[in-house]
């Protein structure tokens, strides 16, 4: 009976209840969606760091990271692999050799880290192979008599291997894309021009396109004009095992694109065998073992176990290798909590306000209920139930709207191309795919109901304090 009356009371003043519910819906949706967007950038950054750059766990000789000594190999590899692979939660592991080198082309040179990998093994463990830019080759596919290297787009640009050609092919690609004809006409003045960097093309585009046109179409112009000469070569020079300066020419097997400019600039992947033969490293030696886990959430536990099993080696997980990333993840958790507190506080004030109005409007009625024998407990329960209904309807509908919008945007992504330079420089994707943990929804739903209950206490107590005689006279 209490539930039935409370439900009917909610709809007594439909307009007011709907306004309150709408306000709650918008508030909860805005909070949930903002958190999903923020969460997506962090989740994507961590995913790419783990899947493309760091892996879950790295094992080195204790001094290797500081010395980068080419002869500082991990000993007793057979036992080590056995120990790692038999640790619960480890999916797979592989070895790498790492050599500091100088990369040079005819135009430029820069320092890089040559990473000797087993392409087959890496393909199964990491997703870096999937990051190849179409048209630039592949991730060590097919046999070749040349040394081959898989490099990042940023390095390719820095070494002037990638250029931007506004040639006929580029204009054909633009015509086939959804760039409007009037925008293409504005770009006609650049037909035949070669830009040596994205920065220069971007500067020219900003001069001829409106802000909106630039925001909408610059990405497509870049990809249409992006030009790479297949089979381009880079010379790497490095120090071999004997301490002699040596070097070799590598053909580019493919160019990868991640969201991390620094990683793209500094890491060059080459086949393990090739690097061994060029540096004189005895095959079977590794500088680093990287292990992939079945779940990111077990990283800390597995790290402890592997560390205990390999006390003489340095065992680090991605959080320790990149503490800024780990700190960001923790910090974001606190931001989410703060967001939720703000949303729930707003929700609580909305409910208190509405229910106080409802109690004051119904003073006489509540007095009558007390007069005819409805006890304090039932009056209290009735007001609380009304508040809970309001908060549950508003909260749940906000979450449903949030889920739908998150589902749509997580499929299509949110493009933040305007901030691409800054975001990619620090390893964040400009395409955000909002994502939220289902557990978050459950916790939020519980918190909303709890907020409804807590915030109804004051109006309900106010109702209890009404003196039936005065209330019936409409005095209080």
């Amino acid at each position, binding site marked *: *009976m209490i539930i039935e009356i409370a439900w009917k009371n909610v709809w007594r003043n439909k307009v007011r209840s709907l306004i309150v519910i709408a306000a709650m819906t918008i508030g909860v949706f805005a909070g949930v969606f903002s958190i999903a967007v923020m969460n997506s950038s962090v989740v994507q950054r961590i995913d790419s760091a783990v899947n493309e750059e760091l892996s879950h766990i790295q094992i080195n000789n204790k001094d290797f990271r500081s010395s980068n000594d080419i002869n500082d190999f991990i000993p007793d590899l057979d036992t080590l692999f056995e120990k790692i692979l038999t640790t619960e939660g480890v999916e797979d592991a592989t070895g790498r050799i790492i050599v500091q080198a100088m990369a040079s082309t005819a135009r430029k040179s820069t320092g890089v880290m040559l990473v000797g990998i087993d392409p087959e093994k890496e393909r199964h463990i990491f997703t870096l192979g999937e990051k190849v830019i179409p048209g630039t080759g592949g991730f060590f596919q097919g046999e070749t008599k040349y040394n081959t290297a898989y490099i990042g787009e940023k390095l390719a640009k820095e070494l002037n291997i990638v250029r931007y050609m506004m040639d006929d092919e580029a204009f054909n690609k633009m015509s086939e894309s959804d760039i409007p004809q009037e925008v293409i006409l504005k770009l006609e003045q650049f037909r035949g021009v070669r830009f040596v960097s994205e920065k220069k093309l971007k500067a020219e585009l900003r001069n001829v396109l409106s802000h909106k046109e630039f925001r909408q179409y610059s990405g497509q112009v870049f990809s249409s004009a992006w030009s790479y000469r297949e089979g381009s070569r880079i010379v790497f020079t490095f120090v071999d095992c004997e301490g002699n300066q040596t070097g070799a020419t590598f053909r580019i097997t493919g160019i990868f694109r991640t969201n991390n400019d620094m990683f793209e600039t500094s890491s060059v992947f080459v086949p393990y065998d090739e690097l061994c033969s060029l540096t004189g490293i005895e095959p079977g030696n590794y500088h680093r073992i990287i292990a992939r886990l079945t779940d990111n959430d077990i990283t800390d536990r597995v790290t402890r176990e592997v560390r205990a099993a390999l006390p003489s080696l340095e065992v680090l997980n991605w959080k320790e290798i990149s503490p800024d990333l780990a700190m960001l993840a923790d910090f974001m958790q606190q931001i989410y909590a703060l967001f939720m507190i703000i949303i729930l506080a707003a929700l609580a004030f909305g409910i208190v306000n509405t229910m106080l109005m409802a109690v004051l409007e119904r003073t006489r009625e509540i007095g009558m209920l007390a007069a*005819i*024998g409805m006890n304090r407990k*039932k009056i209290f329960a009735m007001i609380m139930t009304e508040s809970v209904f309001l908060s549950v309807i508003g909260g749940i509908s906000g979450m449903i709207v949030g889920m739908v919008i998150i589902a749509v945007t997580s499929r299509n992504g949110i493009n933040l191309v305007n901030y691409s330079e800054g975001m990619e420089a620090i390893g964040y994707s400009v395409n955000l795919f909002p994502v939220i943990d289902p557990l978050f929804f459950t916790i939020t739903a519980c918190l909303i109901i709890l907020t409804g209950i807590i915030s109804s206490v004051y109006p309900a107590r106010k109702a209890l304090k009404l003196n039936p*005689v005065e209330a019936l006279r409409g005095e209080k």
Partner: protein
Amino acid sequence: MNVLEINEVYKTYHDTEVAVTAVNGVTLSFERGEFAAVVGPSGSGKTTLLNLIGGLDQPTDGEIIVAGHRLSELRPSELIDFRMEHVGFVFQSYNLIPVLTASENIGFIMNLQHWPADKRKKRTDELLHSVGLADRGNSRPSQLSGGQQQRVAVARALATRPEFILADEPTANLDSKSTDTLLDIMEKLNRDEEMTFIFSTHDSRVVRRARRIITLEDGRVVSDERR
């Protein structure tokens, strides 16, 4: 047998600068089945007396005994239960629950007392029929006229067969036709169910029908006539 005894009851309000004695040494007793009107000018203490009898307010002094219960000895929560079980209220402005239908309003106190659904429905139908609203059970208060709403309020007050019905100016907002209909119904219920009715009223039409008239002035009983 007396269903209600009021012995030397006083009620003084100290809310204002000057203390106001609304009920001043009233002693009365009521038997089962009485149809009594408490009359008097405004401020004579009629409503206060009814509030004291109904356990809505506490006397400053004196004793009220209803069906063996000394009201002064009951705790607030026991007073609420007492009102639910022993007193039926009819208010001047009907005071029905606007979100419930006429049937639900009548069944409300039975519901509070956890009557089984079938028994509750039977009694509701019976009362709706008695107050001439058998076909309006599903109407909300806003769909009923003032007279009809007051009839529903009377039916609600009678539903659990309390010791007596306290009606504070029940006809004040009704036209003559509705007043006559309501009084006919209350007289019939008083007769058929042996229910004790105590009204406070200014309405001469109610006074004409009452079988006992208690006149108050300045909180004192100045006359108590039985017809």
